[in-house]
């Protein structure tokens, strides 16, 4: 039985982050507009290699915030697309906070916010419907290799946190595998789940266990020092 949540925060220092990026975002160099292209290139690698580095991407948005002439809308979109794959971490909003007032009305950003809302509110079928009905969405996410799979992982994690067993049909809808049985089975098996009689069985974990507990008070030694002091005075 694992005693850790299935959720993990976006790492402060991802293992694949190159030395040069690390020293750049750690120091005052992060404010130097000349460095924006290094960070943008690094975002490119993240998109290619299915990696994600929130802190480095926030550093790009920071430079944009101070130097509006540097802003590249395509880069902002890609950063937001990557942040979608980190839900339910707050990354997407942390990026939005750094954008200029009014940016929320930008057409592409508004589309991505729509996707974010349906993911955050666990309306997964709606997410896929929105995503597939308009080519503009696929275009927005086209540079992020493995975007669909990443989103499926986000959804499956949420399901594994709440369910111990779930109807395979329902899960197929959530994961957008409606006419793709093989794909569905391969995916959930790769995540360690099994199907039996059209029901997907999810092993118990920290999040889906739901065990009643009694929290007992825990008195630390420091709380007693005063009382022990009194006894000396007697």
């Amino acid at each position, binding site marked *: 039985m694992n005693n850790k*949540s299935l959720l993990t925060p976006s790492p402060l220092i991802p293992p694949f982050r190159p030395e040069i990026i690390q020293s750049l975002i750690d120091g005052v160099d992060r*404010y130097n*507009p000349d460095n924006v292209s290094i960070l943008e290139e690094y975002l490119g690698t993240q998109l290619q290699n299915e990696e994600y580095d929130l802190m480095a991407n926030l550093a790009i948005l920071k430079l944009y915030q101070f130097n509006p002439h540097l802003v590249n809308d395509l880069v902002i979109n890609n950063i937001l697309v990557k942040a979608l794959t980190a839900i339910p971490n707050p990354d997407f*909003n942390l990026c939005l*906070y750094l954008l200029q007032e009014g940016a*929320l009305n930008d057409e592409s950003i508004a589309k991505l916010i729509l996707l974010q809302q349906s993911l955050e509110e*666990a309306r997964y079928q709606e997410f896929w419907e929105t995503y597939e009905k308009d080519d503009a969405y696929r275009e927005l996410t086209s540079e992020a290799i493995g975007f669909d799979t990443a989103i499926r992982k986000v959804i499956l994690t949420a399901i594994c946190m709440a369910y111990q067993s779930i109807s395979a049909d329902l899960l197929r809808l959530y994961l957008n595998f409606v006419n793709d049985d093989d794909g569905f089975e391969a995916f959930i098996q790769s995540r360690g789940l099994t199907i039996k009689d059209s029901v997907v069985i999810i092993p118990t974990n920290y999040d889906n266990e*739901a065990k009643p507990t009694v929290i007992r*008070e825990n*008195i630390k030694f420091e709380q007693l020092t005063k009382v022990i002091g009194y006894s000396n005075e007697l």
Partner: protein
Amino acid sequence: MEEYHEGYEEEIDLAEEIDLLTNNNDDYAGVEEDLDEEGQMQLLILQQQQYAQEIPEVVKNFIIYFHRNILENNVYELHGIYENSFNRLTEKFYGKTPWPEADYIAPLVNDDQVFLTLYRELYYRHIYSKLTPAIEHRFHSYENYCDLFNFILNSDGPVSLELPNQWLWDIIDEFIYQFQSFCNYRSRLKTKTEEEIALLRDNIQVWSCYSVLNVLYSLITKSRITEQLLVSKHGGDMIEAAGEYGSRPLYKMLGYFSIIGLLRVHCLLGDYTLALKMMDNIELSKKALFARVTACHVTTYYYVGFAYMMMRRYADAIKAFSHILVFIARTKMYHTRSYQFDQINKKGDQMYALLTICIALCPTRLDENIHPHLREKYGEHLLKMQRGEEGLQTFEDLFLYACPKFISPNGPNFEDPNALTQTIEPHHHHAKIFLSEVRHQLLIPTLRSYLKLYTTMGIDKLSAFLDIDAETLRTQLLIVKQKSRQQKWTNGTLLEGEYVTTSDLDFCLKQDMIHIAESKVGRRYGDWFLRHINKFQDIIAGMDLRS
């Protein structure tokens, strides 16, 4: 536009060499010329005023005394001068008018430029707090801060000046306050005269983000405060770590306060991760340096708590707000007489509002020292916030009341004629994003109240109770589950932490059946006895005294 770029790049280079400030002063010459005519007019008027109304004798004596103690580095006396005498004289003579201009008191202090710079710091701060600063005041105050930091950072070797910690904190605090105030002032072009707009357009470097960050980072570098904090945490040679500058209290404290200053600046800019990252080497404990100055202590926790809240780390935010509110409640009697009493109270009240938001989103048992006050002040708000859609307005009201004054770093685009009629209001941007977050969770309180009544329940039955369809209920349950897990700090830097359960109510789904589990808090006998033993001991001690 070209000039714009160059200015920024130049400033960046200088960040490394830490002599940006001199450069800014050169740029500033243009303003002086612009102001010339008007400035001279004002000078004349002021001169006349001064002749008519001489500086009172007590104020003259005070300034002479003040000057002498600055020269002697008498920190103890300066403490009294700064916290008491100056404020008393302000009340008596300068409640509605500025203090005498530095030029008028110059003869009293042998034209001591360092003293006059420090004096102007107080002079402008007084205008900001008691009167309405005009654009000239804003520009000149910036120039004066440049002079002050230039003197501290770019003299030959460390300066021998010593000032009370409270004043050093106030210098950093006020510097950021005036920066924020300027950004908001610049964002409202609608009400400005043409001259004012021209001045703003031609002096884009005044109070620019880069210049403010440069000052704060330069103070941090010069004082080697990061190295000092690392040595105090892990051990090592402090004298070597501190170096020539950092071993002097003035530099050490300015460097330290600049870290807290950056925490604040980054929050004002909406960069919450970077804000908390500034605190990497500072531990949140009572022994930390920030606790030496109450205003700094309060500021630190306000911004740490706020940043956590914006990062959805409500449990961590609640801990931060509770800590400082308990502190304020316990020390109330000590700072009722402080000149900062009102400010601390206002921040305290804002933090109660933020705390209310946090416990609405993450129900938590509060410390008994603050719970009654919160219930009294915001109990009704809290009830409203749990009533779904109609509660949203209350969230917004409390957020706008208690959030920091966000800034838009670049100000209006002067090339764009539309910009002249628009007002940039960054707090709406932040409120909108934050509220979208709240919106996801509106149904949770209702759902929780039902779940608490059962141990197992079918999806169909519950959806009938709630009058929603089964699929919506499944969706809502997934939200409840996700929101009941939060990243929470256990050790390491403030940004670290792991996801844990933050709710007393948990459940799991087995296909169409909900299984509910509630964790209960056992009675706290030990705590009860400890409190009463202490109370009893106090009574005995009281009786001993009397007999």
